[in-house]
């Protein structure tokens, strides 16, 4: 190949140099035109990635000026109200970053907003993956990687929030100390383990600093690498539609379309975060003052991703602390701070395995589910979110009380009840909505769209003309996994010998029934045939094109209620 311009010549030279030493040519050939499907909801994970890059960049800037030390100094900077006030070097350097380092406040606010966005993007990305069933085989491991990233995100947020050593974050640490002390048997020692002695000591800020800038981001970076590697290995899922199957991937090539789209989107995310930091104040620590064990401000809230824990702590009635045989068991702290999040995270992390157990499905899935076609999964997801948001609201019960002039005690009691009733109600409602949407799909497939054209027939009857679906829409609405509860072998074989594994199978059957008992039977070939014939017939005869269908569609195989 002859090169023409000097630029092309230089590029060819560099490529040749690299390829002779790394065989990069193979990599480029295989990856440059790799296909990625397009959908707005696939951008949620990208927002998380780009927020994390923003966090790394702004974080490096902050480490140049922040001093992770609890040594007490007298403030002598330009911020007049703090003149001479005693504070830790950590707080003093945070003030310096805000008041003296030009662009320091911007980087602080960029860092904080990016952290909030990072967590929000992770949670919504996880919701997308959950509701579309993208966690199914072969992606269970990647779901777990993402799940660990969620926990690490919480850890990064928590360790960073406490660093400025202001009165708000200090009280957050004090709450942490209280929770740690509640751990049975080793609580007091765990408190010493965390704080290097009594609370607050002088070790906690340097320790959190190391975790925050080295350990946690290092792990996040490594796991993001693994997460993306698995995405490339599996090739991205795509939404259902004609031409898209479990055996192909439909979309646009990495180079140049995704290089431009994703690369450009990265800059948009950076830009939006910077715009937020430029115009919306966050964590003005100069108003709070340095940490002091005595003062506290009313109406204080943690960052949003910690609110559910805060709400959980607020809702738990105090009567649940017991002294048994002279030892104190603080269930009023252990249940809200450990059992509740433990339950939430176990359900989330284990869901793909629970669902695989219920279906017995061993196939690979690359076409996403429409949420309506997995009613119990969708309903369970909504129920989990309901519980989460009730806890989030409970974490702001004092603000709700003061803003809406309500009784704090009444709000707390309402949330205590709602925490149990809310998820059950939304589970039921969501499941009904999903089944309703499936019925609507059936109707559309069999009768077509209402055309809003009313025709008066010769003998005076009025009918509405229905327009049959085009083949693309028809395919979308009929081509999905319709599941039924699994059947299991009887307890005893032909010779009356009790079979091994029967108990496990009955549990499995029960779970499978919970998932798939209430269902809408998909349109059968006969029904479709009949509907078509009827429509044609009606058309010829000049009768209504609207066909009433037999059978309530919904099947109940066993009459158990749940």
């Amino acid at each position, binding site marked *: 190949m002859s090169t023409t311009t000097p630029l092309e010549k230089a590029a060819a030279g560099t490529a040749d140099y690299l390829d002779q030493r790394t065989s990069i040519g193979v990599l480029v050939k295989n990856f440059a035109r790799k296909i990625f499907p397009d959908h707005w909801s696939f951008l949620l994970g990208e927002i998380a990635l780009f927020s994390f890059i923003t966090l790394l960049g702004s974080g490096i800037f902050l480490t140049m000026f922040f001093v992770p030390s609890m040594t007490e100094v007298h403030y002598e900077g330009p911020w007049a109200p703090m003149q001479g006030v005693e504070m830790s070097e950590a707080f003093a350097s945070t003030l310096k970053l805000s008041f003296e380092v030009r662009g320091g406040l911007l980087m602080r606010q960029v860092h904080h907003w990016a952290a909030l966005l990072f967590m929000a993007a992770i949670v919504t990305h996880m919701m997308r993956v959950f509701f579309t069933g993208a966690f199914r085989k072969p992606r269970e491991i990647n779901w777990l990687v993402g799940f660990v990233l969620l926990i690490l995100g919480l850890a990064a947020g928590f360790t960073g929030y406490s660093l400025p050593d202001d009165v708000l974050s200090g009280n957050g640490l004090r709450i942490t100390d209280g929770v740690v002390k509640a751990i049975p048997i080793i609580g007091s020692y765990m408190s010493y383990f965390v704080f290097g002695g009594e609370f607050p000591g002088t070790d906690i800020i340097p320790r959190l600093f190391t975790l925050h800038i080295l350990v946690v981001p290092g792990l996040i970076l490594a796991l993001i690498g693994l997460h993306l590697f698995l995405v490339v290995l599996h090739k991205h899922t795509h939404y259902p539609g004609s031409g898209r199957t479990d055996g192909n991937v439909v979309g646009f090539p990495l180079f140049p379309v995704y290089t431009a789209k994703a690369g450009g989107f990265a800059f948009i995310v950076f*830009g939006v975060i910077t715009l937020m930091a430029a115009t919306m104040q966050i964590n003005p620590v100069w108003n709070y003052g340095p940490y002091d064990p005595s003062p506290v401000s009313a109406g204080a809230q943690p960052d949003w991703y910690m609110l559910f824990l805060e709400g959980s702590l607020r809702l738990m009635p105090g009567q649940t602390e017991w002294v048994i045989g002279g030892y104190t068991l603080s269930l009023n702290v252990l249940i809200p701070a450990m059992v509740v999040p433990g339950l939430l995270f176990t359900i989330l992390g284990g869901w793909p395995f629970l669902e695989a157990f219920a279906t017995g499905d061993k196939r690979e899935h690359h076409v996403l589910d429409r949420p309506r076609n997995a009613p119990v999964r969708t309903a369970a997801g909504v129920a989990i979110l309901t519980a989460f948001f009730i806890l989030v609201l409970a974490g702001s019960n004092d603000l709700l009380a003061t803003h809406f002039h309500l009784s704090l005690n009444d709000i707390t009691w309402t949330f205590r009840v709602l925490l149990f009733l809310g998820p059950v109600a939304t589970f039921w409602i969501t499941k009904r909505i999903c089944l309703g949407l499936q019925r609507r799909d059936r109707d559309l497939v069999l009768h077509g769209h209402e055309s809003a054209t009313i025709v008066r027939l010769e003998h005076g009857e009025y009918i509405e003309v229905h327009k049959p679906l085009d083949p693309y829409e028809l395919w979308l609405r009929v081509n999905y996994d319709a599941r039924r509860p699994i059947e299991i072998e009887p307890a005893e074989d032909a010779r009356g010998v009790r079979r091994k594994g029967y108990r496990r199978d009955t549990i499995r059957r029960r779970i499978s029934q919970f998932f798939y008992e209430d269902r809408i039977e998909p349109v059968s070939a006969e029904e479709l045939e009949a509907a078509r014939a009827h429509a044609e017939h009606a058309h010829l005869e000049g009768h209504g094109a609207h066909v009433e269908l037999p059978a309530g569609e919904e099947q109940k195989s066993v009459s158990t209620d749940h």
Partner: protein
Amino acid sequence: MSTNTHDSHDELVVRHAPEGVSDPGLPPHTPRLGDSDPKAAKRSERIVAGLFGLSVIGSILVVVSFFVVKPEGTVESIQRSNMFLGLGLALALGGIGFAAVHWAKSLMNDHEKVEERHPQRSSEEDRAGAVAVLKEGAEDSGIARRSALKGGLITALALLPLPIALPLIGNVGADWKVSKFRHTMWKRGTRLMTDPTYRPIRAADVTIGSVVHVIPEGLNHEDLDHDQKFMDEKAKAVVLLVRLDERDLKHTEGSYHGIVAFSKICTHVGCPVALYEQQTHHLLCPCHQSTFDVSDGAKVVFGPAKRALPQLPISVDDEGYLVATDDFSEPIGPSFWERVK
């Protein structure tokens, strides 16, 4: 019909699509305006170039504001500087972002492409090959034949975390003397001092209904050896002092003419309990809203705390200043396993 749950999923799963309906394939491509109209394409090109231009303007704005808009030690000035730098940077970043995305969407080839997928599972030959390679390696190492080596390797590796973890865990909790939770600086005769003004409190000066934030005498940097101790001691010793009408008090032990002093550290998870409601004599913790009744020994009346706030027994000295008559009778703050042992 097979009912074996392990291979019957084909029956359970109906990838539905009834007979007579087939996949019509990808929907036809809808061309964009710019695909057929060179003018529209040219317009898109100008928009993209304009957006890149905005980015350049943003970068220049940052450089100019860095020198021109200086922070001067006031909140207004740092907010102004923040605003100019931030808007410039947002423009510099967003300009590139929107330009690239608009370029991709309006000018780059938008025909969808299809790529085959392959099952994740390796082929049988590859699997057999992997097993063979591992077997060969294990054979070479001789680990199967020499069981002493196997035992040695496992034992050595199993013990290895210990010499690393021991020094870490041994040191990370300093002296591990958790009994320090049980005592505070308060003892018989310690004067009650105002926080943060550090003045003794004359009983006669405390009016009914007033609240005073209190620390023990001696809790200042001059009297304590080093900074750590100051914070650790203050975290345990802070007290809230309230004067009620003596007739409103349900118990008078430890009080002095209606003046009562309670630990300010919540028995739930340790926030400072700081909101006092004069009418109801209720103390509210702003963190999790545990509510304590000051007229009734700071008993819990609502919220997630179980126990009353520990009371600091007080009296007055010869000069009429409030003093403690003892330390708290129980550990202050949140519960822990061996609290009442």
